[in-house]
């Protein structure tokens, strides 16, 4: 039996591949997605991948232990470059997280149904990326065991946080973001956890999924409130996600350092975050759909749409680079113009031109639909963009700081092995969490996929 390929509430667009390949039923969608979790044996590929990620995670553990024992002096930071890898990686990770919220919240409000098959793992990606991001400012503090001083609580010192500081705003923005993302993700999981509870054959699985599902039984009265809550959370997450990277950009923009003090920073940072995030979603989606055979659900159309978002936000970012240069020239300030000159021709200029190549030149290939539909090309472009976005933060943090107002305070920065250990280790943490996620939780929202099937449509004249 062949079902019509268009999704629910979807206008017919014949030139695009479908959102769900034809022939699927409620049962087949459920079986296909939950099989990655409920199958007995663990696939060899998963074990190898997890082992590799876990090895990198151990690199993080060693780096953090060494840092805690000897202090932040083990990193390459010093005056004037007191912010380096820790802040670069913080901004890089938190930016990556933004695509998950964009997909789950903004695209939901815009009724973009193609988000359905990618929102779950994009949200998981957000959560894990924010966890990685959160590590850095904590460890950069030098005495992370006093991190709770950042929160306003009555204490015997009689002191309160300085609420006029963007760094305190950051604490509130990032912790709110983490909590809201966690709740959004968990709420989205509840009906699928109930599915796993009902399908799980082992006692342990039944118990754990049963506890997590909290007794969800799919009652219409529950669904009614559930959908309201989900929509409200989406509406709340939308301004939140914009505010988070805006506040991150304030960490820089509120300071006077040439290269930081720019009004273009908030929109430019938000666009950069979405850009980097979509690159990461593509990097994850392409291997996941191949290894778990999910081509029916994450179709070429999804990849095409994500590539378009990446291209659009890439152009915003390119505009940001142009405006930074223009503003520096137009300001006629010696320090601002020197900042650009130093970026273009200074000691770190190869990194700047590499950034332009990665973030501005390479994504232009995405104008061609043949490249957007080619998974290998798309994967490579997304990889290049991820590197480019890391370089962007390197340029903003290090190149701005290393030559500020007084030439007598200028200095060069180079990372140590412990900087690299922390960075590579955080990738290990991210990948380990991701591997555990795809093994123990459904990586695609099962109940939302059901709503895309033709059988979910209730015609009023039939009823």
């Amino acid at each position, binding site marked *: 039996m062949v079902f019509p390929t268009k999704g629910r509430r979807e206008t017919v667009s014949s030139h695009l591949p479908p959102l769900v390949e034809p022939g699927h*039923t*409620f*049962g087949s969608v*459920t079986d296909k997605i939950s099989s990655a979790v409920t199958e007995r044996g663990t696939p060899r590929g998963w074990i190898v991948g997890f082992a590799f990620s876990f090895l990198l995670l151990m690199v993080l553990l060693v780096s953090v232990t060494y840092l805690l024992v000897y202090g932040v002096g083990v990193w390459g930071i010093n005056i004037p470059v007191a912010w380096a890898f820790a802040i670069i990686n913080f901004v890089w990770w938190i930016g990556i997280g933004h695509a998950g919220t964009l997909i789950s919240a903004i695209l939901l409000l815009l009724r973009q149904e193609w988000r359905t098959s990618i929102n779950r793992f994009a949200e998981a990606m957000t959560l894990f990326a924010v966890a990685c991001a959160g590590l850095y400012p904590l460890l950069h503090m030098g005495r992370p065991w006093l991190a709770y001083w950042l929160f*306003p609580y009555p204490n015997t010192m*009689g*002191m*309160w946080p300085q*609420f*006029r500081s*963007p760094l*305190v*705003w950051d604490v*509130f*923005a990032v912790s*709110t973001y983490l*909590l*809201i993302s966690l*709740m959004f993700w968990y*709420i989205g999981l509840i*009906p699928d956890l109930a*599915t796993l*509870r*009902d*399908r799980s054959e082992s006692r342990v699985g039944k118990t754990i999924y049963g506890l997590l599902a*909290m*007794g*969800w*039984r*799919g*009652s*219409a*009265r*529950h*669904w*009614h*409130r*559930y*959908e*309201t*809550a989900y929509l*409200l*959370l989406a509406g*709340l*997450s939308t*301004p*939140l996600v914009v*505010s988070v990277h805006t*506040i991150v950009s304030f960490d820089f923009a509120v300071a006077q350092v040439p290269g930081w003090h720019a009004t273009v920073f908030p929109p430019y940072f938000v666009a950069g975050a979405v850009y980097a995030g979509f690159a990461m979603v593509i990097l994850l989606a392409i291997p996941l759909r191949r290894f778990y055979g999910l081509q029916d659900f994450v179709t070429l159309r999804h990849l095409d749409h994500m590539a378009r978002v990446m291209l659009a936000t890439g152009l915003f970012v390119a505009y940001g680079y142009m405006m930074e240069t223009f503003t520096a020239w137009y300001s006629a300030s010696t320090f601002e113009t020197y900042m650009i000159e130093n970026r273009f021709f200074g000691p770190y200029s190869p990194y700047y031109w590499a950034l332009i190549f990665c973030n501005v030149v390479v994504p232009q290939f995405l104008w061609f639909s043949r490249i957007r539909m080619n998974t290998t090309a798309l994967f490579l472009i997304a990889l290049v963009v991820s590197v480019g976005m890391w370089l962007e933060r390197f340029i903003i943090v290090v190149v701005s700081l290393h030559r500020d107002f007084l030439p007598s305070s200028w200095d060069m920065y180079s990372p140590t092995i412990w900087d690299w250990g922390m960075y590579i280790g955080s990738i290990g943490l991210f990948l380990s969490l991701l591997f555990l996620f795809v093994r123990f939780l459904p990586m695609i929202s099962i*109940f939302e996929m*059901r*709503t895309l099937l033709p*059988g*979910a*449509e*209730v*015609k*009023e004249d*039939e*009823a």
Partner: protein
Amino acid sequence: MRNLAAHGLMAEFASAADLVAAAREVREAGYRHFDAYTPFPIEELDEAMGLHHTRLPFLVLIGGILGGLGGFALQYWTSVVNYPINVGGRPLFSWPAFIPVTFECTILAAGLTAVLGMLALNGLPQPYHPVFNISRFALASRDRFFLCVEARDPRYDPVETRHFLEGLDARRVSDVES
């Protein structure tokens, strides 16, 4: 041993359309204490069952307002009253600098209200519910659609109601023990 205090009668349907039609009939027949169980949310079902109002958006609004006011008050009190610091003669009540944290507190409180409010109004977590006594009910989280008329409904009658449900294209009708 059979539990005499039955929870109600459960009818099983093969499609969403059948369930929505049945829910409408049940409601029109005057039943009020009944519930439908589906593997995904069905908009048309809310209307068929007469579900229109939920207090949740109102609660979220209140939560957001309290969160915003609370966040702003915290910053005002700590920065102006309890721990004033003179930074270059700038005003202590520098309210524009308090906006980001106020905003984040608003979102956090509203989000927490949305999630906890939804769970509380739905009565979750709930470790036990009679509907799970039916073994086929496991399919409610897969591809089947159920409708349960509860025994506490004044119009409920074990025989009459069963006949009525059987006449609604139900695949099967079974007793739910409480």
